[in-house]
Protein backbone atom coordinates (compact mmCIF):
# COMPACT_ATOMS: atom_id res chain seq x y z
CA UNK A 1 0.00 0.00 0.00
CA UNK A 2 2.85 2.32 0.84
CA UNK A 3 4.56 1.69 -2.49
CA UNK A 4 1.27 2.23 -4.29
CA UNK A 5 0.86 5.63 -2.63
CA UNK A 6 4.34 6.68 -3.68
CA UNK A 7 3.76 5.56 -7.26
CA UNK A 8 0.44 7.40 -7.27
CA UNK A 9 2.16 10.56 -6.07
CA UNK A 10 4.85 10.30 -8.73
CA UNK A 11 2.23 9.83 -11.44
CA UNK A 12 0.28 12.80 -10.08
CA UNK A 13 3.40 14.98 -10.15
CA UNK A 14 4.25 13.86 -13.69
CA UNK A 15 0.76 14.58 -14.95
CA UNK A 16 0.69 18.04 -13.39
CA UNK A 17 4.14 18.91 -14.74
CA UNK A 18 3.15 17.81 -18.22
CA UNK A 19 -0.17 19.61 -18.01
CA UNK A 20 1.49 22.82 -16.87
CA UNK A 21 4.08 22.60 -19.64
CA UNK A 22 1.36 22.03 -22.23
CA UNK A 23 -0.52 24.91 -20.66
CA UNK A 24 2.55 27.07 -21.21
CA UNK A 25 2.71 26.12 -24.89
CA UNK A 26 -0.91 26.95 -25.45
CA UNK A 27 -0.72 30.09 -23.36
CA UNK A 28 1.77 31.49 -25.87
CA UNK A 29 -0.75 30.75 -28.62
CA UNK A 30 -3.59 32.26 -26.54
CA UNK A 31 -1.57 35.38 -25.85
CA UNK A 32 -0.47 35.87 -29.42
CA UNK A 33 -3.97 35.42 -30.77
CA UNK A 34 -5.43 37.77 -28.17
CA UNK A 35 -2.73 40.41 -28.68
CA UNK A 36 -3.40 40.22 -32.38
CA UNK A 37 -7.09 40.80 -31.74
CA UNK A 38 -6.32 43.78 -29.52
CA UNK A 39 -4.07 45.25 -32.20
CA UNK A 40 -6.45 44.53 -35.06
CA UNK A 41 -4.32 41.78 -36.57
CA UNK A 42 -4.95 38.12 -37.20
CA UNK A 43 -2.13 36.43 -35.30
CA UNK A 44 -0.66 32.97 -35.89
CA UNK A 45 -3.22 31.06 -37.97
CA UNK A 46 -1.14 29.01 -40.41
CA UNK A 47 -0.05 25.90 -38.50
CA UNK A 48 -3.09 23.71 -38.06
CA UNK A 49 -6.68 24.86 -37.57
CA UNK A 50 -6.78 28.34 -35.99
CA UNK A 51 -3.01 28.12 -35.63
CA UNK A 52 -3.38 25.52 -32.90
CA UNK A 53 -0.21 23.70 -33.97
CA UNK A 54 1.87 26.88 -33.73
CA UNK A 55 3.30 26.01 -30.25
CA UNK A 56 4.41 22.62 -31.59
CA UNK A 57 6.15 24.30 -34.52
CA UNK A 58 7.83 26.77 -32.16
CA UNK A 59 9.02 23.98 -29.88
CA UNK A 60 10.48 22.03 -32.81
CA UNK A 61 12.22 25.16 -34.05
CA UNK A 62 13.75 25.86 -30.63
CA UNK A 63 14.86 22.26 -30.21
CA UNK A 64 16.79 22.23 -33.46
CA UNK A 65 18.61 25.49 -32.89
CA UNK A 66 22.31 25.41 -32.13
CA UNK A 67 23.09 25.32 -28.44
CA UNK A 68 25.62 28.09 -27.83
CA UNK A 69 27.51 28.76 -24.61
CA UNK A 70 29.42 32.06 -24.65
CA UNK A 71 33.14 31.51 -24.02
CA UNK A 72 33.38 34.34 -21.51
CA UNK A 73 30.46 33.08 -19.45
CA UNK A 74 30.65 31.24 -16.17
CA UNK A 75 29.58 27.86 -17.53
CA UNK A 76 28.19 26.15 -14.44
CA UNK A 77 26.15 29.13 -13.30
CA UNK A 78 25.14 29.85 -16.89
CA UNK A 79 23.61 26.38 -17.16
CA UNK A 80 22.21 26.44 -13.64
CA UNK A 81 20.21 29.65 -14.09
CA UNK A 82 17.49 28.43 -16.50
CA UNK A 83 17.13 25.24 -14.48
CA UNK A 84 16.51 27.24 -11.31
CA UNK A 85 14.01 29.46 -13.10
CA UNK A 86 11.90 26.59 -14.43
CA UNK A 87 12.17 24.52 -11.27
CA UNK A 88 10.75 27.22 -9.03
CA UNK A 89 7.96 27.94 -11.52
CA UNK A 90 6.85 24.31 -11.49
CA UNK A 91 7.26 23.62 -7.77
CA UNK A 92 4.64 26.24 -6.86
CA UNK A 93 1.98 23.92 -8.27
CA UNK A 94 2.49 21.39 -5.49
CA UNK A 95 0.20 23.11 -3.00
CA UNK A 96 -2.50 24.52 -5.27
CA UNK A 97 -5.82 22.64 -5.17
CA UNK A 98 -7.19 22.34 -8.71
CA UNK A 99 -10.43 20.84 -7.57
CA UNK A 100 -11.79 18.16 -5.33
CA UNK A 101 -12.01 14.63 -6.64
CA UNK A 102 -12.25 12.56 -3.51
CA UNK A 103 -10.80 9.12 -4.24
CA UNK A 104 -12.60 7.79 -1.17
CA UNK A 105 -15.80 8.30 -3.15
CA UNK A 106 -17.51 10.78 -0.86
CA UNK A 107 -18.03 14.25 -2.27
CA UNK A 108 -19.54 15.74 0.93
CA UNK A 109 -16.18 15.53 2.70
CA UNK A 110 -14.85 18.02 0.15
CA UNK A 111 -16.97 20.78 1.63
CA UNK A 112 -16.33 20.20 5.31
CA UNK A 113 -13.10 21.54 6.86
CA UNK A 114 -13.51 19.25 9.86
CA UNK A 115 -13.45 16.14 7.68
CA UNK A 116 -10.07 16.85 6.11
CA UNK A 117 -8.77 13.35 6.91
CA UNK A 118 -11.51 11.71 4.85
CA UNK A 119 -10.50 13.52 1.68
CA UNK A 120 -8.00 11.83 -0.60
CA UNK A 121 -7.84 14.47 -3.26
CA UNK A 122 -6.58 13.46 -6.68
CA UNK A 123 -6.47 17.10 -7.77
CA UNK A 124 -3.94 18.41 -5.27
CA UNK A 125 -0.41 17.05 -4.83
CA UNK A 126 0.36 18.12 -1.27
CA UNK A 127 -1.92 19.53 1.38
CA UNK A 128 0.43 21.11 3.89
CA UNK A 129 -0.61 23.35 6.75
CA UNK A 130 1.74 26.09 5.56
CA UNK A 131 0.84 26.13 1.89
CA UNK A 132 0.75 29.92 1.65
CA UNK A 133 4.22 30.22 3.15
CA UNK A 134 5.40 27.58 0.72
CA UNK A 135 4.12 29.66 -2.19
CA UNK A 136 5.85 32.77 -0.83
CA UNK A 137 9.11 30.91 -0.28
CA UNK A 138 9.16 29.40 -3.75
CA UNK A 139 8.33 32.67 -5.49
CA UNK A 140 11.11 34.35 -3.53
CA UNK A 141 13.60 31.79 -4.84
CA UNK A 142 12.48 32.62 -8.38
CA UNK A 143 14.71 35.71 -8.37
CA UNK A 144 17.83 33.56 -8.58
CA UNK A 145 17.21 32.27 -12.07
CA UNK A 146 17.03 35.76 -13.51
CA UNK A 147 19.80 37.29 -11.40
CA UNK A 148 22.27 34.48 -12.03
CA UNK A 149 21.47 34.41 -15.75
CA UNK A 150 22.31 38.09 -15.91
CA UNK A 151 25.56 37.65 -14.07
CA UNK A 152 26.78 34.43 -15.67
CA UNK A 153 26.31 35.62 -19.25
CA UNK A 154 29.11 38.14 -18.75
CA UNK A 155 27.37 40.66 -20.94
CA UNK A 156 26.46 44.24 -20.13
CA UNK A 157 22.88 43.98 -21.33
CA UNK A 158 22.26 40.78 -19.44
CA UNK A 159 23.90 42.17 -16.32
CA UNK A 160 21.78 45.31 -16.37
CA UNK A 161 18.67 43.23 -16.92
CA UNK A 162 19.61 40.93 -14.07
CA UNK A 163 20.25 43.80 -11.65
CA UNK A 164 17.02 45.50 -12.60
CA UNK A 165 15.17 42.26 -12.17
CA UNK A 166 16.51 41.55 -8.73
CA UNK A 167 15.82 45.10 -7.53
CA UNK A 168 12.30 44.94 -8.87
CA UNK A 169 11.50 41.52 -7.50
CA UNK A 170 12.88 42.37 -4.04
CA UNK A 171 10.85 45.58 -3.95
CA UNK A 172 7.55 44.07 -5.00
CA UNK A 173 7.90 40.91 -2.98
CA UNK A 174 7.07 42.89 0.16
CA UNK A 175 3.77 44.18 -1.15
CA UNK A 176 3.03 40.76 -2.61
CA UNK A 177 3.63 39.00 0.69
CA UNK A 178 1.52 41.52 2.58
CA UNK A 179 -1.37 41.18 0.14
CA UNK A 180 -1.24 37.41 0.61
CA UNK A 181 -1.05 37.88 4.38
CA UNK A 182 -4.35 39.75 4.32
CA UNK A 183 -5.98 36.57 3.03
CA UNK A 184 -4.30 34.57 5.77
CA UNK A 185 -5.63 37.02 8.37
CA UNK A 186 -9.18 36.99 7.10
CA UNK A 187 -9.27 33.26 6.45
CA UNK A 188 -7.44 32.42 9.66
CA UNK A 189 -5.31 29.68 8.11
CA UNK A 190 -2.12 29.13 6.12
CA UNK A 191 -3.37 26.10 4.26
CA UNK A 192 -4.56 26.58 0.67
CA UNK A 193 -7.18 23.88 1.11
CA UNK A 194 -8.73 25.53 4.14
CA UNK A 195 -8.65 28.93 2.47
CA UNK A 196 -10.72 27.54 -0.39
CA UNK A 197 -13.15 26.00 2.10
CA UNK A 198 -13.34 29.21 4.13
CA UNK A 199 -14.68 31.02 1.06
CA UNK A 200 -17.98 29.18 1.29
CA UNK A 201 -20.72 31.52 0.15
CA UNK A 202 -18.37 34.48 0.07
CA UNK A 203 -15.33 34.86 -2.14
CA UNK A 204 -12.52 36.76 -0.47
CA UNK A 205 -12.51 39.10 -3.44
CA UNK A 206 -15.25 41.20 -1.79
CA UNK A 207 -13.92 41.79 1.73
CA UNK A 208 -10.32 41.97 0.53
CA UNK A 209 -10.82 44.16 -2.50
CA UNK A 210 -7.82 46.31 -1.57
CA UNK A 211 -5.71 43.22 -0.97
CA UNK A 212 -6.84 41.82 -4.31
CA UNK A 213 -5.79 44.98 -6.12
CA UNK A 214 -2.42 45.00 -4.36
CA UNK A 215 -2.00 41.32 -5.14
CA UNK A 216 -2.72 41.77 -8.82
CA UNK A 217 -0.35 44.75 -9.17
CA UNK A 218 2.52 43.15 -7.30
CA UNK A 219 1.94 39.79 -8.99
CA UNK A 220 2.23 41.49 -12.38
CA UNK A 221 5.46 43.06 -11.18
CA UNK A 222 6.71 39.69 -9.91
CA UNK A 223 5.96 38.23 -13.32
CA UNK A 224 7.94 41.09 -14.93
CA UNK A 225 5.17 41.71 -17.42
CA UNK A 226 3.96 44.99 -18.87
CA UNK A 227 3.77 47.66 -17.41
CA UNK A 228 6.62 46.37 -15.22
CA UNK A 229 8.62 44.61 -17.94
CA UNK A 230 11.58 46.97 -18.03
CA UNK A 231 13.72 43.99 -17.06
CA UNK A 232 13.55 42.84 -20.64
CA UNK A 233 12.88 46.13 -22.36
CA UNK A 234 13.80 45.25 -25.93
CA UNK A 235 14.47 48.83 -26.96
CA UNK A 236 17.15 49.50 -24.36
CA UNK A 237 18.42 46.13 -23.15
CA UNK A 238 17.95 44.00 -26.29
CA UNK A 239 16.23 41.36 -24.22
CA UNK A 240 17.62 41.77 -20.71
CA UNK A 241 18.85 38.86 -18.68
CA UNK A 242 18.32 36.25 -21.40
CA UNK A 243 20.20 38.09 -24.14
CA UNK A 244 23.00 35.52 -24.25
CA UNK A 245 20.73 32.51 -24.09
CA UNK A 246 19.66 30.66 -27.17
CA UNK A 247 17.92 27.51 -28.28
CA UNK A 248 16.35 25.39 -25.56
CA UNK A 249 17.90 27.38 -22.72
CA UNK A 250 16.06 30.46 -23.90
CA UNK A 251 12.93 28.35 -24.19
CA UNK A 252 13.34 27.39 -20.54
CA UNK A 253 13.30 31.04 -19.48
CA UNK A 254 10.33 31.69 -21.69
CA UNK A 255 8.64 28.65 -20.19
CA UNK A 256 9.32 29.67 -16.61
CA UNK A 257 7.83 33.09 -17.28
CA UNK A 258 4.61 31.71 -18.71
CA UNK A 259 4.30 28.90 -16.16
CA UNK A 260 4.66 31.51 -13.44
CA UNK A 261 1.96 33.50 -15.15
CA UNK A 262 -0.42 30.53 -14.98
CA UNK A 263 0.69 29.84 -11.42
CA UNK A 264 0.02 33.42 -10.31
CA UNK A 265 -3.42 33.22 -11.88
CA UNK A 266 -4.03 29.97 -10.04
CA UNK A 267 -2.89 31.51 -6.75
CA UNK A 268 -5.13 34.53 -7.30
CA UNK A 269 -8.02 32.17 -8.02
CA UNK A 270 -7.33 30.16 -4.89
CA UNK A 271 -6.93 33.15 -2.61
CA UNK A 272 -9.56 35.54 -3.87
CA UNK A 273 -12.03 33.84 -6.20
CA UNK A 274 -12.88 30.78 -4.17
CA UNK A 275 -10.48 28.34 -5.86
CA UNK A 276 -12.38 25.43 -7.37
CA UNK A 277 -15.66 26.48 -5.75
CA UNK A 278 -18.62 27.24 -7.91
CA UNK A 279 -22.11 28.28 -6.82
CA UNK A 280 -24.34 25.24 -6.58
CA UNK A 281 -21.52 22.71 -6.71
CA UNK A 282 -22.48 21.03 -3.46
CA UNK A 283 -26.14 20.85 -4.48
CA UNK A 284 -25.12 19.32 -7.79
CA UNK A 285 -23.07 16.70 -5.96
CA UNK A 286 -25.96 15.89 -3.62
CA UNK A 287 -28.33 15.58 -6.57
CA UNK A 288 -26.08 13.22 -8.49
CA UNK A 289 -25.48 11.21 -5.32
CA UNK A 290 -29.23 10.81 -4.82
CA UNK A 291 -29.71 9.74 -8.44
CA UNK A 292 -26.67 7.59 -9.16
CA UNK A 293 -24.78 6.92 -5.93
CA UNK A 294 -21.68 8.36 -4.27
CA UNK A 295 -19.04 7.49 -6.88
CA UNK A 296 -20.60 9.29 -9.86
CA UNK A 297 -21.18 12.24 -7.53
CA UNK A 298 -17.50 12.33 -6.55
CA UNK A 299 -16.48 12.17 -10.22
CA UNK A 300 -18.94 14.87 -11.28
CA UNK A 301 -17.87 17.15 -8.42
CA UNK A 302 -14.23 16.55 -9.35
CA UNK A 303 -14.79 17.40 -13.01
CA UNK A 304 -16.96 20.44 -12.38
CA UNK A 305 -14.62 21.83 -9.73
CA UNK A 306 -11.63 21.35 -12.05
CA UNK A 307 -13.55 23.06 -14.83
CA UNK A 308 -14.52 26.01 -12.68
CA UNK A 309 -10.93 26.37 -11.48
CA UNK A 310 -9.60 26.37 -15.04
CA UNK A 311 -12.27 28.86 -16.10
CA UNK A 312 -11.24 31.31 -13.41
CA UNK A 313 -7.56 30.85 -14.27
CA UNK A 314 -8.31 31.50 -17.93
CA UNK A 315 -10.10 34.69 -16.92
CA UNK A 316 -7.05 35.91 -15.02
CA UNK A 317 -4.80 35.01 -17.95
CA UNK A 318 -7.07 37.02 -20.24
CA UNK A 319 -6.72 39.97 -17.86
CA UNK A 320 -2.93 39.69 -17.91
CA UNK A 321 -2.87 39.65 -21.71
CA UNK A 322 -5.28 42.58 -21.81
CA UNK A 323 -2.97 44.48 -19.47
CA UNK A 324 -0.04 43.79 -21.74
CA UNK A 325 -1.95 44.98 -24.77
CA UNK A 326 -3.04 48.26 -23.28
CA UNK A 327 -0.34 49.60 -20.95
CA UNK A 328 2.96 51.32 -21.73
CA UNK A 329 6.11 50.47 -19.82
CA UNK A 330 7.00 52.26 -16.60
CA UNK A 331 10.27 54.07 -16.14
CA UNK A 332 12.71 52.61 -13.60
CA UNK A 333 12.38 55.45 -11.06
CA UNK A 334 8.59 55.38 -11.42
CA UNK A 335 8.64 51.66 -10.74
CA UNK A 336 10.64 52.05 -7.55
CA UNK A 337 8.62 55.05 -6.35
CA UNK A 338 5.37 53.24 -7.03
CA UNK A 339 6.52 50.10 -5.25
CA UNK A 340 7.91 51.71 -2.13
CA UNK A 341 5.84 54.87 -1.79
CA UNK A 342 2.41 53.78 -2.95
CA UNK A 343 2.08 50.03 -2.86
CA UNK A 344 3.83 49.34 0.42
CA UNK A 345 1.94 51.94 2.53
CA UNK A 346 -1.33 50.69 1.07
CA UNK A 347 -0.36 47.13 1.92
CA UNK A 348 0.42 48.14 5.49
CA UNK A 349 -2.90 49.99 5.72
CA UNK A 350 -4.61 46.86 4.45
CA UNK A 351 -2.88 44.76 7.09
CA UNK A 352 -4.01 47.14 9.83
CA UNK A 353 -7.55 47.47 8.53
CA UNK A 354 -8.45 43.81 8.42
CA UNK A 355 -7.64 42.71 11.99
CA UNK A 356 -9.24 45.88 13.42
CA UNK A 357 -12.49 45.21 11.59
CA UNK A 358 -12.44 41.48 12.28
CA UNK A 359 -11.90 42.03 16.02
CA UNK A 360 -14.22 45.01 16.53
CA UNK A 361 -17.18 43.84 14.48
CA UNK A 362 -19.17 40.97 16.03
CA UNK A 363 -18.83 37.55 14.53
CA UNK A 364 -20.73 38.14 11.33
CA UNK A 365 -18.87 37.58 8.07
CA UNK A 366 -21.29 39.63 5.99
CA UNK A 367 -21.19 42.79 8.13
CA UNK A 368 -17.39 42.53 8.21
CA UNK A 369 -17.36 42.11 4.45
CA UNK A 370 -19.54 45.17 3.90
CA UNK A 371 -17.36 47.36 6.14
CA UNK A 372 -14.11 46.06 4.63
CA UNK A 373 -15.43 46.48 1.10
CA UNK A 374 -16.37 50.11 1.72
CA UNK A 375 -13.08 50.81 3.49
CA UNK A 376 -11.10 49.12 0.71
CA UNK A 377 -12.81 51.12 -2.03
CA UNK A 378 -12.28 54.31 -0.02
CA UNK A 379 -8.59 53.48 0.43
CA UNK A 380 -8.14 52.83 -3.28
CA UNK A 381 -9.78 56.10 -4.27
CA UNK A 382 -7.97 58.03 -1.55
CA UNK A 383 -4.64 56.64 -2.72
CA UNK A 384 -5.49 57.52 -6.30
CA UNK A 385 -6.35 61.09 -5.27
CA UNK A 386 -3.17 61.54 -3.23
CA UNK A 387 -0.99 59.88 -5.84
CA UNK A 388 -2.52 61.86 -8.70
CA UNK A 389 -2.03 65.22 -7.02
CA UNK A 390 0.82 67.36 -8.30
CA UNK A 391 1.45 65.22 -11.34
CA UNK A 392 2.15 67.11 -14.53
CA UNK A 393 -0.75 66.56 -16.85
CA UNK A 394 0.61 65.81 -20.28
CA UNK A 395 -0.80 67.66 -23.22
CA UNK A 396 -1.17 65.36 -26.14
CA UNK A 397 -2.19 67.20 -29.26
CA UNK A 398 -2.59 64.87 -32.12
CA UNK A 399 -3.94 67.42 -34.56
CA UNK A 400 -2.47 70.84 -35.05
CA UNK A 401 -4.93 73.64 -35.82
CA UNK A 402 -4.99 74.16 -39.58
CA UNK A 403 -5.57 77.91 -39.33
CA UNK A 404 -1.91 78.88 -39.14
CA UNK A 405 -0.75 78.18 -42.65
CA UNK A 406 2.93 78.46 -41.78
CA UNK A 407 2.82 76.01 -38.94
CA UNK A 408 0.92 73.43 -40.91
CA UNK A 409 3.96 72.64 -43.04
CA UNK A 410 6.20 72.62 -39.98
CA UNK A 411 3.82 70.28 -38.21
CA UNK A 412 3.89 67.83 -41.06
CA UNK A 413 7.67 67.52 -40.86
CA UNK A 414 7.90 67.34 -37.08
CA UNK A 415 5.57 65.10 -35.12
CA UNK A 416 2.76 67.21 -33.76
CA UNK A 417 2.15 65.07 -30.73
CA UNK A 418 4.10 66.46 -27.85
CA UNK A 419 4.26 63.55 -25.55
CA UNK A 420 5.97 64.16 -22.28
CA UNK A 421 7.18 61.41 -20.07
CA UNK A 422 4.09 61.87 -17.95
CA UNK A 423 2.15 59.82 -20.44
CA UNK A 424 3.88 56.66 -19.38
CA UNK A 425 2.63 57.09 -15.86
Amino acid at each position, binding site marked *: MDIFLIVFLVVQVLIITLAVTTGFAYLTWYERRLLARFQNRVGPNRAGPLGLLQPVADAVKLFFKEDVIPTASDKVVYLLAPVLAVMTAIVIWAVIPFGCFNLNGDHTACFDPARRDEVWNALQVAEVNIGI*LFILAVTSIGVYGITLAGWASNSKYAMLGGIRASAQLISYELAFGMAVLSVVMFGGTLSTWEIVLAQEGLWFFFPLILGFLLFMISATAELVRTPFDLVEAEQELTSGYNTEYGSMKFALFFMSEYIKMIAMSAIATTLFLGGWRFPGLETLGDGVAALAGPWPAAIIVGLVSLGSFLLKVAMFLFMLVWLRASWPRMRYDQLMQFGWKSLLPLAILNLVMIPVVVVLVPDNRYIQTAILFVLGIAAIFGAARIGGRGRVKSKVELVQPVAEGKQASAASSAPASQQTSGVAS
Partner: protein
Amino acid sequence: MDLVVQIMFGVTGLLILGAAFMVVSVRNIIHAALWLITCFFGIAMLYLLLQAEFLAIVQILLYIGAVAVLVLFAVMLTRQIDDPDEPVLFQRWRSTLLITAILFAAVLVPTIYNHNWLIFADPQPAFAGPRELGFAFMNAYLLPFQIAAVLLLAALVGAIIIAMEDQEQRRVRVLTLAEEVALRGEREPSPPTRPANPQPASSSSNPTPPPAPEQAGEGA
Protein backbone atom coordinates in the same frame (compact mmCIF):
# COMPACT_ATOMS: atom_id res chain seq x y z
CA MET B 1 11.87 4.09 7.91
CA ASP B 2 14.20 5.08 10.71
CA LEU B 3 17.21 3.98 8.66
CA VAL B 4 16.07 6.14 5.74
CA VAL B 5 15.83 9.15 8.05
CA GLN B 6 19.31 8.48 9.40
CA ILE B 7 20.80 8.15 5.93
CA MET B 8 19.12 11.38 4.89
CA PHE B 9 20.42 13.09 8.00
CA GLY B 10 23.95 11.96 7.18
CA VAL B 11 23.71 13.13 3.57
CA THR B 12 22.25 16.47 4.66
CA GLY B 13 24.97 16.96 7.24
CA LEU B 14 27.67 16.21 4.69
CA LEU B 15 26.03 18.61 2.27
CA ILE B 16 25.93 21.40 4.85
CA LEU B 17 29.53 20.88 5.91
CA GLY B 18 30.79 20.59 2.35
CA ALA B 19 28.89 23.68 1.25
CA ALA B 20 30.13 25.65 4.25
CA PHE B 21 33.69 24.63 3.44
CA MET B 22 33.23 25.71 -0.17
CA VAL B 23 31.89 29.11 0.96
CA VAL B 24 35.17 29.98 2.63
CA SER B 25 37.52 28.31 0.16
CA VAL B 26 36.12 29.26 -3.26
CA ARG B 27 37.81 32.23 -4.95
CA ASN B 28 34.90 33.49 -7.03
CA ILE B 29 32.71 35.49 -4.70
CA ILE B 30 29.45 34.76 -6.55
CA HIS B 31 30.22 31.06 -6.32
CA ALA B 32 30.79 31.53 -2.61
CA ALA B 33 27.34 33.13 -2.33
CA LEU B 34 25.83 30.21 -4.23
CA TRP B 35 27.49 27.73 -1.89
CA LEU B 36 26.12 29.73 1.01
CA ILE B 37 22.64 29.29 -0.44
CA THR B 38 23.27 25.55 -0.74
CA CYS B 39 24.26 25.55 2.92
CA PHE B 40 21.02 27.35 3.86
CA PHE B 41 19.06 24.77 1.89
CA GLY B 42 20.74 21.99 3.78
CA ILE B 43 19.73 23.58 7.07
CA ALA B 44 16.15 23.85 5.85
CA MET B 45 16.30 20.13 5.07
CA LEU B 46 17.49 19.46 8.60
CA TYR B 47 14.45 21.30 9.94
CA LEU B 48 12.24 19.20 7.69
CA LEU B 49 13.85 16.04 9.07
CA LEU B 50 13.02 17.32 12.55
CA GLN B 51 9.39 17.75 11.37
CA ALA B 52 9.52 21.50 11.87
CA GLU B 53 7.98 22.40 8.49
CA PHE B 54 7.23 25.94 9.52
CA LEU B 55 10.83 26.65 10.48
CA ALA B 56 12.07 24.99 7.30
CA ILE B 57 9.89 27.16 5.08
CA VAL B 58 10.75 30.29 7.07
CA GLN B 59 14.42 29.41 6.69
CA ILE B 60 14.00 29.28 2.92
CA LEU B 61 11.83 32.39 2.84
CA LEU B 62 14.11 34.56 4.97
CA TYR B 63 17.61 33.28 4.41
CA ILE B 64 17.45 32.13 0.81
CA GLY B 65 14.68 34.38 -0.44
CA ALA B 66 15.75 37.59 1.28
CA VAL B 67 19.18 37.61 2.92
CA ALA B 68 21.07 35.69 0.25
CA VAL B 69 19.38 37.61 -2.55
CA LEU B 70 20.57 40.84 -0.99
CA VAL B 71 24.07 39.42 -0.58
CA LEU B 72 24.09 38.38 -4.23
CA PHE B 73 22.70 41.75 -5.28
CA ALA B 74 25.36 43.66 -3.34
CA VAL B 75 28.13 41.44 -4.70
CA MET B 76 26.90 41.92 -8.27
CA LEU B 77 26.94 45.70 -7.85
CA THR B 78 30.55 45.73 -6.69
CA ARG B 79 33.43 45.47 -9.12
CA GLN B 80 35.38 42.30 -9.76
CA ILE B 81 37.09 41.87 -6.42
CA ASP B 82 38.55 38.39 -6.63
CA ASP B 83 42.28 38.81 -7.11
CA PRO B 84 43.90 35.51 -8.15
CA ASP B 85 47.25 36.52 -6.60
CA GLU B 86 45.83 37.17 -3.18
CA PRO B 87 46.17 34.15 -0.89
CA VAL B 88 42.89 32.69 0.31
CA LEU B 89 44.40 31.69 3.62
CA PHE B 90 45.08 34.24 6.27
CA GLN B 91 48.79 34.54 7.17
CA ARG B 92 48.58 33.32 10.75
CA TRP B 93 46.08 30.60 9.94
CA ARG B 94 47.87 27.95 12.03
CA SER B 95 47.52 29.84 15.29
CA THR B 96 43.93 30.78 14.37
CA LEU B 97 43.16 27.13 13.72
CA LEU B 98 44.68 26.18 17.07
CA ILE B 99 42.67 28.75 19.00
CA THR B 100 39.37 27.84 17.32
CA ALA B 101 40.06 24.13 17.85
CA ILE B 102 40.70 24.71 21.56
CA LEU B 103 37.58 26.83 21.90
CA PHE B 104 35.54 24.22 20.06
CA ALA B 105 36.81 21.44 22.31
CA ALA B 106 36.45 23.47 25.50
CA VAL B 107 33.08 25.11 24.94
CA LEU B 108 31.00 23.50 22.22
CA VAL B 109 31.74 19.82 22.69
CA PRO B 110 30.85 19.70 26.43
CA THR B 111 27.72 21.73 25.77
CA ILE B 112 26.57 19.39 23.04
CA TYR B 113 27.24 16.33 25.20
CA ASN B 114 25.68 17.64 28.38
CA HIS B 115 22.61 19.28 26.87
CA ASN B 116 19.31 17.48 27.27
CA TRP B 117 18.02 17.42 23.71
CA LEU B 118 14.26 17.42 23.31
CA ILE B 119 13.96 14.61 20.80
CA PHE B 120 10.61 12.87 20.65
CA ALA B 121 10.40 9.25 19.74
CA ASP B 122 7.12 9.72 17.87
CA PRO B 123 6.11 12.63 15.63
CA GLN B 124 4.61 15.67 17.35
CA PRO B 125 2.94 17.59 14.55
CA ALA B 126 1.55 20.44 16.64
CA PHE B 127 4.82 21.25 18.33
CA ALA B 128 6.26 23.86 16.01
CA GLY B 129 3.28 24.74 13.85
CA PRO B 130 2.47 28.35 12.95
CA ARG B 131 -0.40 28.53 15.44
CA GLU B 132 1.72 27.34 18.38
CA LEU B 133 4.59 29.63 17.46
CA GLY B 134 2.23 32.58 17.16
CA PHE B 135 0.73 31.91 20.58
CA ALA B 136 4.20 31.58 22.07
CA PHE B 137 5.32 34.86 20.56
CA MET B 138 2.26 36.73 21.71
CA ASN B 139 2.02 35.22 25.20
CA ALA B 140 5.05 33.72 26.86
CA TYR B 141 7.76 35.42 24.83
CA LEU B 142 6.10 38.76 24.18
CA LEU B 143 8.87 40.86 25.70
CA PRO B 144 11.79 39.27 23.79
CA PHE B 145 9.69 39.44 20.62
CA GLN B 146 9.08 43.16 21.02
CA ILE B 147 12.67 43.90 22.04
CA ALA B 148 13.85 42.13 18.89
CA ALA B 149 11.39 44.22 16.89
CA VAL B 150 12.72 47.47 18.38
CA LEU B 151 16.28 46.34 17.73
CA LEU B 152 15.48 45.66 14.08
CA LEU B 153 13.75 49.02 13.81
CA ALA B 154 16.85 50.72 15.21
CA ALA B 155 19.00 48.92 12.65
CA LEU B 156 16.59 49.99 9.91
CA VAL B 157 16.69 53.64 10.95
CA GLY B 158 20.49 53.48 11.18
CA ALA B 159 20.72 52.07 7.66
CA ILE B 160 18.49 54.83 6.35
CA ILE B 161 20.61 57.51 8.05
CA ILE B 162 23.80 56.07 6.60
CA ALA B 163 22.30 55.85 3.14
CA MET B 164 20.62 59.26 3.26
CA GLU B 165 22.23 61.84 1.04
CA ASP B 166 22.93 65.39 2.07
CA GLN B 167 19.91 67.37 1.00
CA GLU B 168 21.97 70.16 -0.56
CA GLN B 169 24.27 67.96 -2.57
CA ARG B 170 21.44 65.88 -3.84
CA ARG B 171 20.75 66.05 -7.51
CA VAL B 172 17.17 65.78 -8.56
CA ARG B 173 18.03 64.56 -12.03
CA VAL B 174 20.99 63.86 -14.29
CA LEU B 175 22.31 67.17 -15.59
CA THR B 176 22.71 67.89 -19.25
CA LEU B 177 26.18 68.56 -20.58
CA ALA B 178 25.62 72.33 -20.79
CA GLU B 179 24.37 72.52 -17.21
CA GLU B 180 27.28 70.45 -16.05
CA VAL B 181 29.73 72.78 -17.78
CA ALA B 182 28.02 75.79 -16.21
CA LEU B 183 28.17 74.15 -12.80
CA ARG B 184 31.87 73.36 -13.18
CA GLY B 185 32.50 76.87 -14.45
CA GLU B 186 31.20 78.31 -11.21
CA ARG B 187 33.59 76.19 -9.24
CA GLU B 188 36.51 76.85 -11.60
CA PRO B 189 38.81 78.84 -9.22
CA SER B 190 38.96 75.97 -6.75
CA PRO B 191 41.41 73.13 -7.53
CA PRO B 192 40.01 69.88 -8.97
CA THR B 193 38.09 68.17 -6.22
CA ARG B 194 38.95 64.71 -7.37
CA PRO B 195 42.36 63.79 -5.91
CA ALA B 196 42.31 60.31 -7.41
CA ASN B 197 42.19 61.74 -10.94
CA PRO B 198 45.16 60.05 -12.64
CA GLN B 199 47.29 62.40 -14.67
CA PRO B 200 48.70 60.87 -17.84
CA ALA B 201 52.49 60.99 -18.11
CA SER B 202 52.41 63.16 -21.23
CA SER B 203 50.38 65.92 -19.58
CA SER B 204 52.30 65.85 -16.30
CA SER B 205 54.50 68.70 -17.56
CA ASN B 206 51.37 70.81 -17.93
CA PRO B 207 50.46 72.09 -14.45
CA THR B 208 47.06 73.57 -15.40
CA PRO B 209 43.97 71.57 -14.52
CA PRO B 210 42.29 69.77 -17.42
CA PRO B 211 39.80 71.86 -19.39
CA ALA B 212 36.26 72.06 -18.11
CA PRO B 213 34.41 70.30 -20.97
CA GLU B 214 36.50 67.19 -20.50
CA GLN B 215 35.60 67.03 -16.84
CA ALA B 216 32.00 67.66 -17.68
CA GLY B 217 32.10 64.76 -20.07
CA GLU B 218 33.30 62.49 -17.28
CA GLY B 219 30.70 63.79 -14.89
CA ALA B 220 27.82 63.41 -17.28
